[in-house]
């Protein structure tokens, strides 16, 4: 005990309280948990916004919420889900897991780490408080195209607060990314070469590199917009010599890599979960690692496929069609390799595995609908309709959020030292899986039937009404499932079974330490000789026993 106390850093009394210790913490695990919990709260709020929108669209000519409120809801729903939920949630999980997975004591820059969390929190609060601004929150959509987002067409301070909140979150992500990169590059355990780091770490590496490259670009775009609104410049005002399309380029040069910033860590999680619950090594470690790098690279060359209807020159449309199709190839490699990993395995259907398999099932649909959107003449028909809404939710919800839950069920025991309830977890999975498909599958059809996105109502009865109603019912089922997760947390926090070091017979280093890990993470480390140090260790123990 005396030895243990001596390795604890000195802390004055005022930093040891239940609240003050969390506020002043620079421990990567605690910051990771702060991130995760905060992101889940924003997820719940933005999810409620989505439910309100679905309620409004359940029947034609509904007046459940006003036009302006509807526009605020979808703007803040999109912004919050992207900037305040999913990207920071990965930052949280990466924060918690990265040092553990590579055998490090902490992140490279612990104080910077704390700063990036607090910037994120205040950025998020700024966004939600913008509902109280004169004229309400931003109403110009999550990508805030000018001239609509310019002062004249969007009066009031909601749009300005939207920009400022994104500034805070962007700085947070930027310095977080520097921290991740420095940690991965400099703090790996002895023997952990690049071909031995967990695939989730590969994903975080590319996640961070992309954030580092694209966050400054969106920040520049938003700053120009803020100057237009507040200082009287005219970067994006055509009447005064500006160019409205410039903003779209700046935005989507960030916006498309952002999709991969969101999905790559989820793919990393799947690459961790599938082998463990198949009792096999990942099929083609190198192929998956390099496809992650390839996706990261190509993701910066496809942005204008969001702008096919803008009227770009033909050669650009063709270039962006081809580059968008190219990016499907490494994505396909991942899917095939995951499925091959399950081949002849010993598949254990714990909740984390259900989410991972569910990810493959639904993400494939999102990937395939993406090919239609990449073919730009087809895109001219379906872009900016519910088809796109369906596509992106298959990728971002069916992909990223399924990955989030796979990660949470898998690593929860490590983070909190308690097992989540498997029965509740599985019920949650099936409810969300059913609700998700009911919600978003019919939206493909809605788009093809001609329903544009971002419409606060529709006047058509018949098929459009039917699909909308199904979609709303699905959203309700999904919400029910997600509420079970909250119930699961509440139920198991105090009374759940305690987690052992390695409840799933994992492969990676984080399972070597206790659950939850001590502040210094590891007392000692095994020398790393492969990408699966824990399995090596188990086998060595068996050999010694035999």
């Amino acid at each position, binding site marked *: 005990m005396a030895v243990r106390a001596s390795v604890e850093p000195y802390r004055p009394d005022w930093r040891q309280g239940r609240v003050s210790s969390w506020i002043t913490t620079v421990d990567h695990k605690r910051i990771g948990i702060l991130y995760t919990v905060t992101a889940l709260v924003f997820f719940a709020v933005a999810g409620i916004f989505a439910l309100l929108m679905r309620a409004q669209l359940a029947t034609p000519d509904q007046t459940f919420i006003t036009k302006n409120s509807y526009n605020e809801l979808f703007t803040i729903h999109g912004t919050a889900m992207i900037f305040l939920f999913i990207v920071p949630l990965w930052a949280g999980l990466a924060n918690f897991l990265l040092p553990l997975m590579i055998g490090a004591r902490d992140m490279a820059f612990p104080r910077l780490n704390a700063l990036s969390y607090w910037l994120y929190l205040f950025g998020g609060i700024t966004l939600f408080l913008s509902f109280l601004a004169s004229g309400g929150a931003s109403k110009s959509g999550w990508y805030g195209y000018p001239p*609509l987002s310019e002062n004249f067409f969007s009066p009031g301070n909601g749009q300005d607060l939207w920009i400022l909140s994104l500034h805070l979150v962007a700085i947070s992500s930027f310095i977080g990314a520097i921290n991740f990169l420095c940690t991965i590059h400099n703090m790996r355990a002895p023997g952990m070469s690049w071909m031995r780091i967990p695939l989730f770490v590969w994903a975080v590496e590319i996640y961070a590199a992309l954030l580092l490259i694209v966050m400054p670009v969106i920040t520049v775009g938003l700053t120009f917009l803020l100057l237009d609104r507040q200082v009287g410049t005219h970067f994006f005002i055509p009447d005064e010599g500006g160019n409205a399309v410039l903003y779209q380029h700046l935005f989507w040069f960030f916006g498309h890599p952002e999709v991969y910033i969101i999905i790559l860590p989820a793919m990393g999680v799947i690459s961790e979960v599938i082998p463990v619950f198949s009792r096999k*090594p990942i099929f083609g470690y190198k192929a998956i690692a390099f496809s992650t790098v390839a996706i990261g690279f190509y993701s910066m060359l496809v942005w204008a496929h969001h702008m096919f209807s803008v009227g770009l020159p033909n050669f650009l449309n063709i270039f962006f069609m081809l580059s968008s199709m190219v990016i*499907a190839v490494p994505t396909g490699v991942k899917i*095939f390799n995951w499925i091959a990993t399950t081949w002849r395995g*010993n*598949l254990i259907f714990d909740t984390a595995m259900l989410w991972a398999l569910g990810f493959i099932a639904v993400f494939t649909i999102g990937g395939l609908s993406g090919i*239609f959107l990449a073919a730009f*003449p087809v895109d001219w028909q379906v872009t900016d309709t519910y088809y796109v809404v369906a596509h992106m939710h298959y990728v971002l919800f069916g992909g990223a959020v399924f990955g989030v839950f796979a990660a949470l069920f898998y690593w929860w025991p490590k983070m909190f030292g308690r097992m989540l309830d498997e029965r509740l977890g599985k019920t949650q999975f099936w409810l969300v899986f059913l609700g998700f498909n009911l919600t978003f599958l019919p939206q493909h059809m809605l788009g093809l039937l001609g329903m544009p996105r971002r419409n606060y109502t529709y006047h058509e009865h018949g*098929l459009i009404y039917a699909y909308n109603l*199904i979609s709303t019912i699905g959203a309700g089922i999904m919400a029910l499932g997600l509420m079970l997760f909250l119930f699961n947390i509440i139920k198991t926090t105090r009374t759940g079974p305690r987690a052992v070091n390695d409840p799933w017979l994992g492969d990676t280093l984080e399972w070597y330490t206790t659950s939850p890990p001590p502040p210094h993470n590891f007392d000692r480390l095994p020398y790393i000789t492969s990408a699966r140090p824990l399995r090596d260790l188990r086998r060595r123990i068996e050999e010694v026993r035999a």
Partner: protein
Amino acid sequence: MPPPVRRKILVLVLALGAALALVAVAYGDNGGFTPPDAKSRNADRINDSYLWISIFAVAILVIVEGALVWFIIKYRRRGRPRNAEGPQVHGATRLELIWTAIPVLILGAVAAFIFYKLPGIQDIPSAKAQGGPLTIRVDAHQFYWQFTYPNGTISIDEMHAPVNRVVRVEIHSQDVDHSWWVPQLGGKFDAIPGKTNETWFQAEEVGSYKGKCGEFCGVLHAEMQARVVVQSKDAYDTWVQTEGPQNLGRGEWIGVCAKCHGLAGRGGYGPAIFNNGLLVQPDALRSLLLAGQNTSGGKDEYMPPVGLGWTDRQFRSLEQYLETAIYKGAAQNGG
């Protein structure tokens, strides 16, 4: 554990499929499984491209989901101990190369088909026999469409076009981004201020085709709908020469003003204006329509500058219509 899982998947898939099939059949449509029936060659070729991609997409979907479900069923634990390992296969380079190459070939086939169809979708036919395409200028405004015909006739929200004639659509915006989209006559093209886009159609049948604004443009985006009325050549000529110009004032009221202020001007999203003296003060009205209103930054004090780019005749037509049909005078204020 595994059998109930399998049953659940089966029930799920069946329930989902049955529900969707039922609604689709019940309304006897294409069900939203393909883009709407094309009535112009460019839209038709887009539909061909859609179907071509669908062949590959459905095949890949069946193979991937099939393999996934098959492996899930076949390799489930079935009472084996948790720590029983499968064969420790680390990969198979040849196999991985094959499933990298096949998608490349499929995408090549998709891209090739698009290149083959592209000129027919994008290039405006020269239509020499018809004396060149008929150009109709589209001006997108918050929250209405304005169409200007070669002879200067203007209509609002309702485009008239002759059947079987190549129509070149020249798309402009007067305020924010919009997107011109009539699904049965082709894809979307954005209306962006400071930029001119063009597209075309050649309607094969007389009829009325619905269009919607495709790019979010503000509070009444959902009401920014267009209609393309395709008529016989004679009917079109009559309309563009006489009927169109006569109905301009009424069209402007319905398309430009009434969406917010109500058909009788008794208020809706915007305030009641039927007794507002401004309606009969041409100069003040004009400056309001040109400048819009954006006073206190509150939600409901915003009025778009709906008159941007209007001709003198447009203002006069509206003024005339307001005076005769809408303005009820201050005397009726109490009633």
